[in-house]
């Protein structure tokens, strides 16, 4: 959120808003927001991708609506109204996924409903969409949403490859591959994310040094 204040002093183009969500302010790797779905449904690449896209959709719609309503909503009840907006779109997404694929809906379980309480969406509504116009908010939501999906996919792919020896249900290794069961278990989620954070931190430190 402090990044927003810093960047608003300079002239910021829409492309910058888009790019920052992908890498510099990546919601998962840098801001560490919205961790619950990140860890919970990233056990396969497919789940991770579906969850990421669902979240990105809700983020986009809620950012648009919050930005449109930013001059009408009284300050005191803004958080409550943001949450109502988000909850509406999550309900829509929930029913849409159920209509598209019952199987996917089952494997994601209650975590689709739990998008409501994803701190990432609320923090974008509060820190960005409520202060900026619609087009900027759309780019912000797209960048953040894609960044989130990208991070989820990074986790899901690693966990599926190591834990199951496959990606998108396509086997990668020969019969002799001993899969790392721990990667599919909850503990694997924590470890994988920790290692990704280490890698990103390492790259970041090297960059600032040089």
């Amino acid at each position, binding site marked *: 959120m402090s990044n927003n204040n810093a960047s608003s002093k300079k002239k910021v183009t829409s492309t910058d808003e888009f790019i920052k969500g992908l890498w510099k302010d990546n919601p998962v790797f840098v801001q560490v927001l919205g961790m*619950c779905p990140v860890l*919970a449904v990233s056990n396969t690449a497919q789940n991770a991708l579906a969850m990421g896209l669902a979240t990105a959709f809700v983020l986009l719609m809620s950012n648009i609506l919050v930005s449109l309503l930013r001059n009408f909503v009284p300050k005191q009840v803004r958080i409550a109204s943001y*949450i109502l907006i988000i909850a509406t779109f999550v309900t829509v997404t929930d029913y849409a996924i159920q209509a598209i694929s019952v199987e996917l809906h089952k494997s994601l379980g209650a975590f689709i409903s*739990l998008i409501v*309480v994803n701190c990432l969406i609320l923090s974008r509504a509060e820190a960005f969409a409520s202060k900026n116009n619609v087009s900027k908010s759309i780019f912000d939501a797209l960048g953040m949403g894609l960044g989130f999906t990208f991070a989820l996919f990074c986790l899901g792919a690693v966990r599926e490859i190591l834990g199951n020896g496959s990606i998108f249900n396509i086997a990668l290794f020969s019969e002799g591959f001993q899969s790392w069961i721990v990667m599919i278990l909850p503990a694997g989620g924590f*470890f994988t994310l920790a290692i990704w954070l280490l890698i990103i*931190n390492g790259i970041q430190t090297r960059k600032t040094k040089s």
Partner: protein
Amino acid sequence: MNTESLGTIFLNACLVNNFVLAYFLGICPFLGVSGKMETATKMGGAVMFVMLISSMCAYGIHAFLVSIGAPFLQLISYIVVIASTVQLVEMFIKKISPSLFRSLGIFLPLITTNCAILGVALFQTNKEYGFLESIVYALGAGAGFTLALILIAGLREQLEFAEVPKISKGTALTLFIAGILSLCFMGFAGLGG
């Protein structure tokens, strides 16, 4: 209808399927306020209280929504109940202990977006628990959350002065500890059926 005994429900929610370490619910406050033992304990208490109230309300709301045939309003009504309970707790804490209010900071209003609380409400609906079972489930989940929070706060306090590589300071280290704790909690599997 469910046939689990109340004790089993409590153990399941608290240890076997610990909300933080097995379901990954409530990770944000888990990473955010687990730096100090004292704050962690009080945060756990506040979350447990909100969980209990919202679980009771969720039971009533669900029954009502089913009776009027509008289950699609479930999510919206749950979140409104949770948000108002959190508001209540916030005013209460501000009144009786301003210092605690300051130390919890932004994480107090953020209890609203604590997935563990909404998670309890949603899971109990999915599992079709009765009123008493819902209360026990919420208590178990709250106890489990507090337990995980206190455990990790203790470990982090110990590690504060340990020499770790610079890049692993902060979140990454906490996640490693959480991973190891999660492995430990797998030892409870099978307990309580």
